[in-house]
């Protein structure tokens, strides 16, 4: 059982303060959804936790199993078990998905330890079968010329292969039509069961993703922090009343 603790986190981009006192604890196997209108700091939170160099953490802490990760570079955090599924994944021309993932898996091995190529491909193909991804997919260059749906499936495949302790999924539903959404959701759900299931933080605008990936907890984010938490019914309430409801309630408080 692992635990990711975000404690009173404040994040700025340049001089501008974006995340203002965000706190949340996620345990293995749990799915937390964070909802909120544009510009409330959801993506900033995810990137700051993952260690993006443009985001400055001005105060607060992020602890993985009790130890702060803030002094670690992005790649160290990744190897410690933190995965970010990007809203806009980068294209890497000329590097196949298979080779990219292989490099990522190799990076997790101890110094001097060689990757077992046969075992790697066996595992890769098993994950692809699980996610119903065509074998030809992994010979394509990473995200190069991919449709929105393909990019998101590529993210899910990477997540499946790297078996993180915690996954931050940033607007994984954006730009997906309903069929692609279902495929991606099926993929995430396939990773949910079992003893090594990651803790997941789902960042989304919309309720519709939560019809397919049912969260254990729903949090509403507003102006850089969580203003309301509940179970999956909160998402439905939001859907019915809209974010204006939160704004009004919060402004009145």
């Amino acid at each position, binding site marked *: 059982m692992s635990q990711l603790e975000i404690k009173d986190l404040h994040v700025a981009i340049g001089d501008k303060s974006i995340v203002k006192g965000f706190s949340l604890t996620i345990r293995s196997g749990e799915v937390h959804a964070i909802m909120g209108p544009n510009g409330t700091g959801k993506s900033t939170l995810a990137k700051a936790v*993952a*260690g*993006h*160099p*443009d985001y400055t953490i001005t105060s607060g802490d992020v602890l993985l199993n009790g130890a702060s990760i803030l002094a670690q*570079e*992005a*790649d160290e955090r*990744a*190897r410690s078990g933190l*995965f*970010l599924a*990007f809203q806009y*994944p*980068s*294209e*890497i*021309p*000329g*590097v196949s998905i298979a080779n*990219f*993932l292989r*490099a*990522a898996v190799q*990076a*997790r091995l101890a110094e001097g330890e060689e990757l077992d190529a046969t075992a790697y491909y066996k595992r890769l193909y098993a994950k692809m079968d699980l996610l119903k991804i065509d074998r030809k997919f992994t010979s394509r*260059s990473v995200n190069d010329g991919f449709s929105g749906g393909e990019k998101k499936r590529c993210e899910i495949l*990477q997540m499946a292969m*790297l078996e993180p302790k915690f996954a931050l999924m940033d607007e994984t539903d954006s730009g997906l039509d309903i069929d692609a959404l279902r495929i991606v959701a099926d993929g995430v759900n396939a990773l949910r069961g079992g003893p090594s299931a990651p803790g997941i933080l789902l960042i989304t605008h919309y309720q519709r993703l939560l019809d397919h990936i049912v969260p254990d907890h729903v949090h509403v984010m507003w102006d850089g922090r969580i203003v309301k938490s509940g179970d999956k019914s909160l998402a439905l309430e939001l859907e019915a009343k809209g974010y204006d409801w939160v704004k009004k309630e919060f402004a009145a408080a």
Partner: protein
Amino acid sequence: MSALTYTPPPAPAADSATENPVVGIDQTKGDFSYNMDYEFDAGTGLSEKTVRYISSVKKEAPWILEFRLNALKKFLSMPMPTHWATKDLENINFDKIRYYLSQGQKPKRTWDEVPDDIKKTFERLGIPEQERKFLSGVEAQFDSEAAYSNIKELVAKQGVIFANSTEALREHPEIFRKFFGKVIPTGDNKFSALNSAVFSGGSFIYVPKGVKVAQPLQAYFRINAENFGQFERTLIIADEGSEVVYMEGCTAPKFSTSTLHSAVVELVALKGAKIQYITVQNWANNVFNLVTKRGVAHEEAEIKWIDCNIGSRLTMKYPGVVLKGRKARGEVLSIALANDGQHQDTGAKMIHAADETTSNIIAKSISVGQGRSTYRGVVHIPKHLKGCKNNTECDALLINSNSRTDTYPAITVRGDQNATQHEASVSKVNEEMIFYMQQRGLTEGQAMSLAVNGFINDLARQFPMEYSVELKRLIDLEMEGSVG
């Protein structure tokens, strides 16, 4: 013969680029001892005396001496091409260069004296122990002599001549003289003139009619069996319908005894012949590498240059093909990597001189840090020709914002019965891409190296397997070192 032990004094930093003795090695770790054999040493500086000396040591025929002396005159009379090329050329001090070093002069140092970073590089490249010692100057030779004579004997059964140019001038003057200096005239440029005056070493290959040489001929073996050539002169003649692949260089860092390298390579592909010339070079970063390479492709013949340039202070190299016969084909595939303090000025020339000739140029350059890469290309298709085609693609990748790249394509296509296609792109490895890869667990250096390997991947795949593998390793090393 007098063997002296010579310990070079610490070189003054400002002039180190043109100073001779211990290049390619961190001079602060210097004090290597050399066994100097002055019997065959032309001394420093260039004069008629130097040229006469070289020719007499090599016991050359009078026509060659005349050729050399004529070239020397041209060299001395020609200005530096700094009206278009970099001013850095002016930093070459011709008076301080040794133009001829004999066989007897071999550096001698012990393995313990080889700097650690160089040892590490050898290790990372997976170079066999024996070769490491040779490359770092601990041993003057390894058993490449045997490898070379094996290949030489093997191909001799097919009538192929594979020799060094000095040997070939003596033993096959009739073939040599017919083609020598015809593809690249002495006065083609200042450095081809220099090479013509003082050339030494290099390969001579003649492939008889219809012979297809099964294995690539490797200069690696041959040159290692001598001293690394400073002014190499290579001439390859593929007679009608024959085929040959020639490989030059290796990816290990080359420790040369001079800071100026100026080779001339001439290829002649007669009717229906195919020549493929592959170069992978990794010079120490104080070397001026100024090379003239050109081939003539006769009717239905094909010449392909594969050229990888890594390292050096300044490389100027524009492999060319003169498409002289109908349906001749020419191709240049090149990769250049310019790291901090390096300038790769490379490109290609395609001179269409017959109907239905086709040429293809794909050039990729990578600039890292303050590294600078320049592409210069010439494609010439005159008006009276029909059915000629050219395709030119130049792609540049910049690793840091202060890297620099320039593209000077000169494509002259006249007449309405010819076609050309030109594409150029400049891309940057951006922070988001690096972050994305780091988020998957790769270090910044690994991420950079993967991005660079991806950039050249489609080109590198066309290389022989061992070269593309070595190239990848080399890029890994270069990129790791570039991350602060």
